[in-house]
């Protein structure tokens, strides 16, 4: 049952967005986020919204999935939006009725911010839905590689991340096994009061940790046996190649970003 958990929620596919170079995708996502926060007016948001829809359509992942990524946060976003709408008092007053007062600043912070965050989540989901976590790790390592000169442990962090990704399914499987074993011995894990359940969790965590340490030890030896010696002088089987399409995608994104900046300047 635990096996069903998906991490990073990657949807394999062969769409245009899937095929983009992950390094470009990360850069594009960063520009996209800046674009969302350039100006606070309707047209700016429309630019961002159109861009998000475009990316979602090209990703080939059903819109339903993007909706799913936003849905759990929606109540929270709505409550903050409503509170902001009535409580923020700045700029021109748009509407005043008894003690209710809605100002321009209030609209800006509540409605616009909510739309922005929804777009932000959906837009960045395009990145995680179309790029496998391991590819993403790899791309981050390469984008950050200039930091190696500053002695920032880029390779080590990426290696840790990819080993973590590799062992998540293994450890989940193991947790399942330990849970069944402890249940067979009468440990109450799904039933009983909160306190008994919490106490019984220890019966799962302790064997899990012991085994994780043993695994780490054996893995370290196995890596040494295969000549692992840190990041220096390593070559890679996975080649990240950028194509014309990557530059086009980046160009289009920059055009949208500039459009957003221009709109923000004109309408201020």
């Amino acid at each position, binding site marked *: 049952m635990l096996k069903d958990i998906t991490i990073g929620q990657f949807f394999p596919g062969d769409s245009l967005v899937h095929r983009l170079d992950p390094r470009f995708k990360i850069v594009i996502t960063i520009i996209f986020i800046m674009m969302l926060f350039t100006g606070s007016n309707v047209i700016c948001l429309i630019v961002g919204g159109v861009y998000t829809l475009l990316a979602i359509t090209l990703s080939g992942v059903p819109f339903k999935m993007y909706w799913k990524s936003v849905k759990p946060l929606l109540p929270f976003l709505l409550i903050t939006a409503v509170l902001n709408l009535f409580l923020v008092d700045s700029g021109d007053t748009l509407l005043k009725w008894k003690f209710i007062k809605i100002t321009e600043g209030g609209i800006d912070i509540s409605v616009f911010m909510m739309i922005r965050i929804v777009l932000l989540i959906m837009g960045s989901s395009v990145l995680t839905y179309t790029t496998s976590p*391991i590819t993403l790790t790899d791309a981050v390592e390469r984008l950050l590689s200039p930091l190696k000169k500053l002695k920032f442990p880029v390779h080590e962090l990426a290696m840790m991340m*990819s*080993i973590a*990704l*590799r062992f998540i*399914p*293994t450890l989940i*499987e193991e947790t399942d096994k330990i849970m069944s074993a402890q249940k067979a011995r009468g440990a109450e894990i799904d039933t009983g009061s909160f306190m008994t359940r919490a106490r019984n969790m220890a019966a799962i965590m302790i064997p899990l940790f012991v085994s994780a340490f*043993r*695994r780490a030890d*054996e*893995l370290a*030896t*196995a*890596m*040494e*046996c*295969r*000549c*692992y*010696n840190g990041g220096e*002088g*390593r*070559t*890679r*089987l*996975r*080649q990240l190649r950028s194509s014309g399409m990557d530059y086009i995608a980046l160009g289009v994104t920059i055009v949208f970003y500039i459009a957003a900046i221009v709109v923000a300047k004109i309408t201020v």
Partner: protein
Amino acid sequence: MDNIIEINDLHFSYRDENGNPGAEVLKGVSLTVRRGEFLAVLGHNGSGKSTLAKHLNAILTPTSGKVIVDGIDTSDESKLFDLRQRAGMVFQNPDNQIVSSIVEEDVAFALENLGVPYEEMRRRVDESLKAVNMYDYRLHSPSQLSGGQKQRIAIAGIIAMQPDCIILDEPTAMLDPQGRREVMATIHRMNREKGITIVLITHYMDEAAQCDRVVVMDKGSVVLDDTPAKVFSQVEKVKAIGLDVPQAAELAWELRKAGYDMPEDILTEQECAQAIMKLFA
């Protein structure tokens, strides 16, 4: 130089946290392995087999004595990576030696570490995957594979380094019979077709019976070292160490004891059956 491994009076004791040596785990092991040989190492739990194996690619270095592998002294740190490339090691638990979440990238791991250029790496990875019959799985995640398949991936990761020698520490201990057969067939093929020297540590007597030579360890020393037929004909001695002999060898020994005329070099059920038929003929 025909010996790929030369171990001379090897003593070893693990050190505790304070750096004090504990009891001796290897007590003067001397052993040579010929190039291309298929050697099995037997011995019950704690007899020092894994400790010995770890000396063959300098995961451990001798407290005293010498270990020379392919002309390289394992105490020579300047040749560490050269050594580890020539003598690859496969461990018991397939899960704990696979590094990457994509099969082909795991096979490439050693080559990436050695800085092999892309084109050559691609070629060697594909070749190794084909050699262990796992090429079709190259883009899978290891967690989707069976134990036997994972162990073959681990072997492919070693073969990709093009080693002269592979040391396998109970590679089949965690596998089901099907997985065991696959892995053993793969190891034998590597030995036959690529001429890779194999040192196989095992608890399975039938696996040992298929080797060129069997070394039996007991309490940190080598006590028997001969062909499987000769080793397993010394049933009493093997049993005294706490090991079993293959069933066919044991039956032949019992029959011999009971006064029947059975040859001493019986290992397989077939040989045993033939010998018994001869008795009735």
